[in-house]
């Protein structure tokens, strides 16, 4: 990863975002899915499990502290000439003084002229509640875990909607988010996210040596920005 000089320093400000828990969408079916239930499983489930799922959503929903940090960069992509036809062809992606190669992210960012990087978290209280439940009520901990997964996705959607609204004014649309660790984008990229977004300072979000985030219910992602 080579580092170039940032062209426009104004574009490199880290912005903070917060959401109230009441602003997030609660989806019990989605929660059940994260708890391992199939579609049929949800339909056939006894009422008491749905109740547990609802209780879990209520409990976790009441303790989340949604915070995010994001940064916007102009983006340059150069595709190998045979990108469309050759499965091994790469795209060179450049933003914020960072240059790297990826095929999958290239596909995701095709046509984009700018990019957001964000980190979002539900805060440490959720982890604590899951850990606690695992010791005293393992079945409930499965639902808590699922509720956390459901809400962090829900918060990412909320954040993305907010960003999309801002971009729309200038005639831009957003691409679906893409997280490091997927496809050919190494999980090592977490370090870049953490450096750029100062996650520790801004969000109290930390990265351990195996590149796992704590609090666990957190997401980092790229979001492409494209002219409508």
């Amino acid at each position, binding site marked *: 990863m080579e580092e170039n000089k940032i062209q426009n320093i*104004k574009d490199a400000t880290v912005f903070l975002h917060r959401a109230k828990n009441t602003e997030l969408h609660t989806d019990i079916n989605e929660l059940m899915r994260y708890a*391992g239930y199939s579609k049929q499983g949800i339909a056939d489930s006894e009422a008491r499990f749905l109740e547990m799922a609802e209780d879990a959503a209520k409990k976790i929903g009441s303790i989340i502290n949604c915070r995010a940090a994001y940064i916007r960069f102009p983006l340059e992509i150069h595709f190998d000439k045979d990108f469309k036809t050759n499965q091994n062809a790469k795209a060179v992606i450049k933003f914020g003084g960072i240059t790297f190669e990826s095929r999958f992210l290239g596909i995701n960012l095709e046509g984009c002229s700018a990019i957001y990087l964000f980190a979002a978290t539900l805060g440490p209280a959720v982890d604590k509640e899951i850990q606690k439940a695992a010791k005293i009520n393992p079945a409930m901990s499965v639902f808590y875990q699922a509720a956390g997964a459901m809400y962090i996705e829900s918060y990412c959607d909320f954040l993305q909607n907010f960003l999309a609204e801002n971009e729309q004014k200038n005639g831009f649309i957003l691409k679906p988010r893409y997280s490091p660790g997927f496809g050919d984008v190494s999980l090592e990229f977490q370090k870049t996210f953490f450096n750029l977004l100062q996650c520790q300072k801004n969000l109290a979000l930390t990265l351990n040596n*195996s590149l796992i985030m704590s609090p666990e219910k957190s997401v980092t992602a790229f979001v492409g920005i494209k002219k409508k």
Partner: protein
Amino acid sequence: MNIRDYFGKSILFFDGGTGSVLQGLGLKPGEFPENWNIEHPDEIVKLHYNYYLAGSNIIKSNTFGAFETKFTGAEGKYSLEQIIDAAFKNAQKARELIEEKDKESKEGQKPRFIALDVGSCGKLLKPLGDLEFEDAVTLFKKTFSIGLKKNPDLILIETINDIYEAKAAVLAAKECMENLPQEKRIPIAITTVYDEGAKSLTGSTPEIMVAVLEGLGVDALGLNCSLGPVQMKPIVKRLLEAASVPVIVNPNAGLPRSEGNKTVYDVEAEEFSELVAEFCKDGALFAGGCCGTNPLYIKKLVEKAGKLPAKKIEKKTRSVITSGTKIVEFGNVPVLIGERINPTGKKKFKEALRNNDIPYILNEGITQEEKGAQVLDVNVGLPEIDECKMMTDVVKELQSVTDLPLQIDTSDPITMEKALRIYNGKALVNSVNGKEEIMKSVFPIVKKYGGLLVSLTIDEDGIPTTTEGRIKIAEKIYKRAAEYGIDKSDIIIDPLAMAVSSDDQAGIATLQTVKYIKEKYNGNTILGVSNVSFGLPLREHITSIFFTMAMQNGLSAAIMNPNSMEMMKAWTCFKTLSGKDSQCTGYIEFAQKYEQTMQTVQAQNASGANANATAANQTGQNSETADPLIKAITKGLNDAAAKETRRLLEPAPDGNTENQLSPMQIINEKIIPALDIAGKSFEEKRTYLPQLLMSAEAAKSAFTVIKEILDKADVKQEIKGAIVLATVKGDIHDIGKNIVKVLLENYSFKIIDLGKDVEPEKILEEVVKSKIKLVGLSALMTTTVPAMAETIKLLRKDAPWCKVCVGGAVLTKEYAQMIDADRYCKDAMETVKYAQEVFEN
């Protein structure tokens, strides 16, 4: 003049933001600002100088992120030494320049100081993250020990989100200076981060922060970052009301937001300076800025607040203890301290300690919390176990499942120190007494870590029988504690409840002492009330009335059994009758609970014969099997499973023993088949994980009943074998592993659970020590599979007899083979099957 000479006497001004200023000068996103100490020293000198020029008395060294984890000195990176050395050269140069200028100015020399500045170490502490408390202390120590050689005037720990990390940092600072001569020890200041709800990200309020940090002996405390001065206002007020040390306020210039293509902060310099000057009027003694502020903000602030007199700090005398998230105050409503985590007179608890049965102990804690305890006593002393290790293990585990503050209850000073060290909060400490030797060993520990100290009225001559004798000891303890710098508000006198059965005047002496301490000293008292009824029948009668009398005499806290309805009744009624229960809501709530409990007890007494019917009803009618116990377990109904097991074990009410089963019959004919049904139905995706876990829990309830019976009959239960479980190094996910554990235990395997993020060597050590035949390893991340491979390799080399099964989200059969595991188990049921296979051979 030394910076300490200004403390409490005048207002000192910090500098403002560093990052935002450096960004304006071209700091790249992701680039370490600390590198600029070496690469752009002139810019850093200028930054400091400009703040001095604007009126700052204290500048922060550019070492916010200076930790050896970042500055390793390897791979072209700078070393920590280099960074800190350069940072101080720059800071000192700026100070020399400003002092030159001060000399020429009309106002003359101003106080100009340099703070050794550090932020968070960048990792979250266990149990939420993966950093051990002690490793955090070491990390901070490294930075402080280098920084202290550069002669800073002050240590400033800032932008801390987690109170537990704050504790680690402050301890590190203290310990780095322990061996320095008094004049070399510099003040320790700390500012933490709050959200708009006035809580830190891990849930600590301003009052909790103050209690813990003052307990640790910081010289100044406050808040910075995250919020602007507007949002900080209510928090500053609370800090000023709670703190007895100077308060620091370093707000952001509001929050950054985009306006067109520009970044702007909410609060401009003019408004900022007005608001922050208000804080100084209200009593803040240090003020400055954080993100988004620049020298202009500080200049305006000093213009407005520079001439203000320092408001005198009132010494606060609240007696409080805290966890990381809860605060309990003594001296108003009597505090209930749950006594159940204590082996004295409890056979089952003793056994749990011997078997290292932590879940049993945690359950005792959680049950007491549910019943209304406000503090949990933790006493795990038993001659045959390692008390120190057990104490720290239990404290760590308890503080991950309960929000209640803990009482560290031990007579061993080493155990006390270790427990207080890792305790997340300010603890209740039990205990010291009037013996000189004990005071000498306990006071320094409490002075170092903070705590509210239970002080028993006993000395070298034993327990005085008279009130006067006990008061004399209490007074001696107050006096001696003060010599160590421990205030009376951090002492809680225990005048000792003695058995009235052996001395009929015992109750009186205790109560009179309580009264005297309250009236003469407005001091706090505590009693282990149940001792009073020792040796008498129906002890609750005596204990609860004694408790009431003690409260009437001014008792501040009781160590008692919150599971006792009589005790809770006494406490609730006392509160209601002494005007501490607004509109009797507390009593009405209690009365409802009381009625419910009484009904349940009556129903239980009347049942017996009906148990079968009840269990069958509860389990529903549609199941394949009609057997109530099997049904209760497959459905995951704890109470029904326990009740049915009890029914099967006991003769029918008419004395008929025909249907009675032996414990082994129940296990083999009911519980195991039920678990198999639950497991199979899970495998076939007819049920899902939560139900499987509930079945396991229900089976556990059944086992608990059986165990009780076996214990009474003194029969040893058959254990199939011991298995070591661990989530491998680097991985902090343990839900999957915990599920496997629950199930294996149900199938009568003994589980040695080493937890998460476990070093390969630790696993090997355990396997060799106990000649373990099977190890289960879990990993969730692709990045931690190598650690799993490494563990297996080590086991193959030094414990070739041991089988290894692996599981976790990223593993496959092929992967498992590749890393030389004996078996890949795709879920908990498969692990059980494999374990059975291993131990049958």
